[in-house]
């Protein structure tokens, strides 16, 4: 599916990547400028994986990237329980026309009110934050150029669009989380069920079981995210914790985990207290 796994281990984050502007000022400065000018339209970011940031009166209304499942995947997955059919839908969404068709189908469901407003709102917020992280920062992310299309609107938008600064602060927080879990699991690493794990004596949530079941064959957290219809960062964190419990392994680093201490959960507090995060991720 999506992603780079040519060497079995995804490319590294640049050192000292605590702030986004250090990484891709081309994109973040452009977002700040368009926000300051109160523009409405779509900022197309070219690169790997690239993506689109939609602005409404200078506020972030939605974002999507080929590297992350959009709201269409989250909405359609919730209404299509059949796994084989869903895998085919996911494959079709890896092309631009396929994704457009999925968005149209999801748009119809949304218009019919199939999803409770709270669920839709949570899905749009999740997908937007996940896409911003994927296109602006992370392992092997590049930005080559940006192009703004005035007046272009997304098929779905946040109920309350975010100030650009707020959206980028959240992206920086997510980047610190990604760097932290990346010591153990990165979005494009191959993950397998731990050898001999069998029916282990641990209690897992239905969501965690879905991931374990899907890892009967090698998959990356990014692949898993599409298959379960959730964010890539959320899935990476889940997979990281499943390796901690001992039911999954990073195929590129079996039994290892780099500098990851045993019996430690991801620290969300460290991700919002930058000085603490700096000590943890460099």
């Amino acid at each position, binding site marked *: 599916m999506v992603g780079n796994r040519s060497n079995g281990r995804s490319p590294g984050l640049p050192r000292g990547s605590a702030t986004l502007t250090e990484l891709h000022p081309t994109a973040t400065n452009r977002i700040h400028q368009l926000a300051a000018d109160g523009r409405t339209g779509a900022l197309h970011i070219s690169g790997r994986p690239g993506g689109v940031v939609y602005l409404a009166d200078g506020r972030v209304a939605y974002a999507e990237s080929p590297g992350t499942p959009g709201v269409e995947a989250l909405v359609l997955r919730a209404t299509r329980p059949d796994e084989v059919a869903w895998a085919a839908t996911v494959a079709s969404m890896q092309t631009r026309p396929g994704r457009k068709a999925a968005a149209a189908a999801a748009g119809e469901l949304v218009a019919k009110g199939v999803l409770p407003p709270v669920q839709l709102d949570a899905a749009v917020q999740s997908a937007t934050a996940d896409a911003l992280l994927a296109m602006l920062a992370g392992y092997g992310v590049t930005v080559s150029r940006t192009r703004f299309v005035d007046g272009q609107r997304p098929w779905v938008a946040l109920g309350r669009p975010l100030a650009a600064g707020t959206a980028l602060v959240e992206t920086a927080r997510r980047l610190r989380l990604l760097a932290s879990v990346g010591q153990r699991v990165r979005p494009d690493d191959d993950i397998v069920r731990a050898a001999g794990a069998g029916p282990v004596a641990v209690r897992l949530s239905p969501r965690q079981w879905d991931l374990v079941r899907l890892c009967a064959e090698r998959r990356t957290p990014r692949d898993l995210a599409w298959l379960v219809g959730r964010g890539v960062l959320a899935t990476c964190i889940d997979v990281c*914790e499943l390796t901690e419990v001992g039911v999954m392994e990073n195929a590129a680093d079996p039994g290892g985990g780099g500098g990851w201490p045993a019996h430690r959960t991801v620290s969300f507090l460290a991700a919002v207290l930058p000085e603490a995060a700096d000590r943890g991720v460099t």
Partner: protein
Amino acid sequence: MNAIEQALNRVPQIDGMVGAMLVEASTGHVVGVLHTGDVGRGDQDSATTVLAAAGTDLVHTISLLSAQLAGAGPFDELIVAFRGQHHIIRPVQVVGHDDLFLLVTLDRRRANLALARHQLQAVESQIVA
């Protein structure tokens, strides 16, 4: 105000409640906030950020604990008691999204914890309706 904040606003008044938020457990992303306190906006934002992150850390730690104590059953509720405030954390089930928790902060001088817990159990259904 987004749909989630509108839903939080419909939560019946709980005595002593000074704030409530809905957080995505896997990422610590705050998807909706309701303030009823009278602290300054800037203080609220910073307190919300820290509280959401700390609450998410606790949820992850408890989940890991419950994974390893298989007999303990699923995580139901977490109460953190400070001298001045109670923080109550409850996982919220939304169709297709089993990844949200509600974090409610109560002023300990004005709140009745037992009554608040009882009222909160009804809140979940109101939020997802």
